[in-house]
């Protein structure tokens, strides 16, 4: 399988996504330039973290006009995998591939720290190798990660089991203290109804190696690779 990592102007986790997929996971991976319209045969497109277009106007708001977005939309519509991390999640909501929006953190400050995530669903290509209820320690680093959607949309997400990760405490409880940014219902990551597009605010690529003191995130990338191994 092959990962395609999108470089938007202002992407700054593009190298990190390349490192984890190519060097750590050992998969094939290639950069995709925002002005191009070719996904170069990517099976899984990653929209990495960063400040696309400087987050000017609104995080992710300008990225939806990038030429690369059209083939990404088609890729997603055809069932191809799309993973948005942090700014990539913000872009996916702006593009309309995922519902809801990411607002400024409730405390109005940028926040960079480890959080605990509870895996809510394992029936996606991104989480197939995880255990339901598994707790992972993963860093966040964002100023606009406060997930918002109206109640009807949130209920819809829950009913369709589209909430994939939630912020939790060490016992897996969904407390407000464990919620770092005020996200509705402690939501940290969601997928689309077809389950092939995932967006999450935390950075699994930053905790995928023992030398960094934490490899909890690697299972997400392993899941993606495994889903292709079983598909073949």
């Amino acid at each position, binding site marked *: 399988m092959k990962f395609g990592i999108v470089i938007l*102007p*202002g992407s*700054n*986790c593009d*190298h*990190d996504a390349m*490192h*984890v997929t190519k*060097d750590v996971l050992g998969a094939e991976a290639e950069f995709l330039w925002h002005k191009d319209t070719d996904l170069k045969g990517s099976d899984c497109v990653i929209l990495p*973290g*960063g*400040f696309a*277009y*400087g*987050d*000017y106007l609104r995080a992710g708001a300008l990225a939806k006009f990038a030429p690369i977005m059209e083939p990404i939309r088609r890729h997603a519509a055809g069932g191809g995998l799309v993973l948005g991390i942090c700014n990539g999640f913000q872009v996916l909501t702006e593009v309309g591939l995922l519902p809801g929006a990411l607002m400024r953190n409730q*405390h*109005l*400050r*940028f*926040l*960079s*720290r480890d959080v605990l995530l509870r895996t809510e669903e394992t029936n996606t290509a991104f989480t197939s190798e995880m255990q339901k209820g598994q707790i992972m320690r993963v*860093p966040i*680093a964002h*100023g606009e990660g406060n997930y918002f959607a109206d109640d009807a949309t949130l209920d819809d997400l829950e009913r369709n089991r589209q909430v994939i990760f939630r912020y939790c405490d060490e016992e897996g409880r969904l407390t407000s203290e464990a919620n770092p940014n005020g996200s509705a219902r402690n939501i940290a990551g969601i997928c689309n109804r077809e389950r092939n597009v995932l967006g999450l605010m935390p*950075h699994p*690529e*930053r905790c*995928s*190696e023992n*030398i*960094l*003191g934490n490899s909890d995130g690697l299972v997400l990338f392993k899941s993606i690779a495994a889903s292709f191994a079983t598909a073949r």
Partner: protein
Amino acid sequence: MQEPAVTPTLVQSHGINESEYKLIEQILGRAPNYTELGIFSVMWSEHCSYKSSRIHLKTFPTKGPIVVQGPGENAGVIDIGDGWVAAFKMESHNHPSYIEPYQGAATGVGGILRDIFTMGARPIACMDSLRFGELDAPRMKYLVDGVVRGIGGYGNCMGIPTVGGETSFHRGYNGNILVNAFALGVTRKEKIFKGTASGVGNPVIYVGSKTGRDGIHGATMASAEFDEASEEKRPTVQVGDPFTEKLLLEACLEIMDTDAVVGIQDMGAAGLTSSSFEMAGRAGTGIRMHLDRVPMRESGMTPYEIMLSESQERMLIVAKRGREEDVVRIFSKWDLNAAVIGEVTDDGFVRLFWHGDEIAKIPVEPISTEAPVYNRPMQRPAYADRIALKLERDRVADAEMTASLLRLVASPNLCSKHWIWEQYDTTVRTNTIAAPEDRDAAIVRVKGTGRALAMTSDVNPVYCYLDPYEGGKQAVAEAARNIAASGGRPAAITDCLNFGSPERPEIMWQFAECIRGISDACMALDTPVVSGNVSFYNETEGKAIYPTPTVGMVGILEDEHHGAPLAFTDEKLDIILLGATFDELGGSEWQQQNMPDALAAPPLVDLERERKLISLLLALHENHLLRSAHDLSNGGLAVALAECSMDGIGCHVDLKGHADDLDAIALLYSESQARAVVTSNSPDDVLQRAKDAGVPAIRIGHTGAGVFLIERNGVPLVRTTTPELSRIWRSSFSLLLGGDTIDDVIRGVGEEAPEVLAH
């Protein structure tokens, strides 16, 4: 175009004195015009010319086997092994940050990052050394908030982790805060670029943001004291755009990967003026520039404004002739301006043209070689005679010790600064092995090498005030200790020398003494000075800051797995105290909190002891004998033990046999140097190696979950718990920002800082 006539009043308002003006006339062989006067004023400003500091800076040791590039370039460069090099530098942005904290701090980060990538190195880490006044001083909470947001706003967007630094508070900075930004980048040795304009006929290309009217005379502002009118200088503070700089970074590294670039330099202080003169100066050439071809943000700008603008995110490139198209192509790929504005000449002049007319002509060499150099008078200040050799104090009952420790742990200088560094992205680029407060120094791996780099910034301004020579030594010694305790071999330093007005003999004396101390320590510890920056005139209404020679040190971990955390990791490990304790409370945190007006000598720095301790720590790490290691610094032994206990594993120690002749205050809070506290599962091995190395060492107790007990001969001095210590240490800063007192923090009442701290 009507330019102002050059009158004595105009000359004076440019900060140029009579003799300097005569020198200008001599160099030009005529009177300067308005644009030329502006150029001389910024080139000869203290900030750009180092006219008061130069003769002292020459005494720094700058050579060594690992030094690839010493002072004089945009950043220093050291060899880190296997063909890799690290470029690093620290720079001040004090004046702008006091006037407009967000933009001042943000553009400080932007400027230091450009210094790194202009060398061809990709920045991989930042640190910030911040000095604020007392938290309840006017505007101070607003300044803290603005500076922290500004640093985060720029570094986070650039995607470069801020992995370390330091923040302290003292009344000496109430009217003049310090923001010192450090950045480090890595590249291959053969990929280093320099700021040189060689090759007659080569095109001079302007790249990056358009030029606006912001920051005109920023360098001159940084070369004068503050007064009531400083608020009016707000327009001289530049406005940063980290998004554009991120594009500039990628475009520069991409063009550097071709062979089209001859030289490159960022436009920092004094903008197009300093970049063009310095590039031609290094190559011994000249430059001809057509200023009307400079991309401009607004119409009606004059040559004077274009030459003096400090608009951010701009670079000057000298390319190979015929490769202009490659430069333009790559910069337009990244949606940036690139304009050929001139060429390299062999006449030794910078000649400026405006719509075809020559409007300025200044010889390159004399503007630097004949620049004024001052050997300013020095005098030992009167207060130096009032400093006691030892801190005289009343006896303090043993029962008071727990309360005094809790108060220190809650103090703004010693409490956790996570409120600050959690606003910085610390993990982007996936290299961060030790983030802030994990170890004594930050550790960042260099991918693909198996190695890692350690970095720290240190200085104790109170020590430097009390004894600038010892203080200068101490800054280097502590930095080296921090690096070694974290697992790295101290390699080299950059410095950022922040002082008051050099025109005052007492300040000049402090400056010279600090430099002498830094030089001696760098020599003894084999850590040459490879880059640096001087910031004078840090005074407001005649009151100077404390002398603050910030040292940024880089160390090398041959194996990225070396080193240990500072916190105790496991129960039932033996705790060993390395080094000796003396009655040295002058300038200590305990003295500042309990006897703030006392004047007593700071700890003496014995460089031989430091060297031995550093070698021992490195040997212990290399043999994987340590489970934790933490150097003793601010707050002394008791605070160090508390810091080791913040993750829940505490300690039960009895100090019998260590410094038995000292009273409890000195035993617990003396800040004697060359000490560290370590834990090990092979304590006998550690003690034996310490003995062989000539480092005093004693087993003082063991670790334990939840417990924090310090005894002497079985008599408890400090008794508390790790949850209590940790609660106070972690919650204090936000509570103090919210307006609580230290007593409120300890009692557990009060409110955290609001979301936005108002002006």
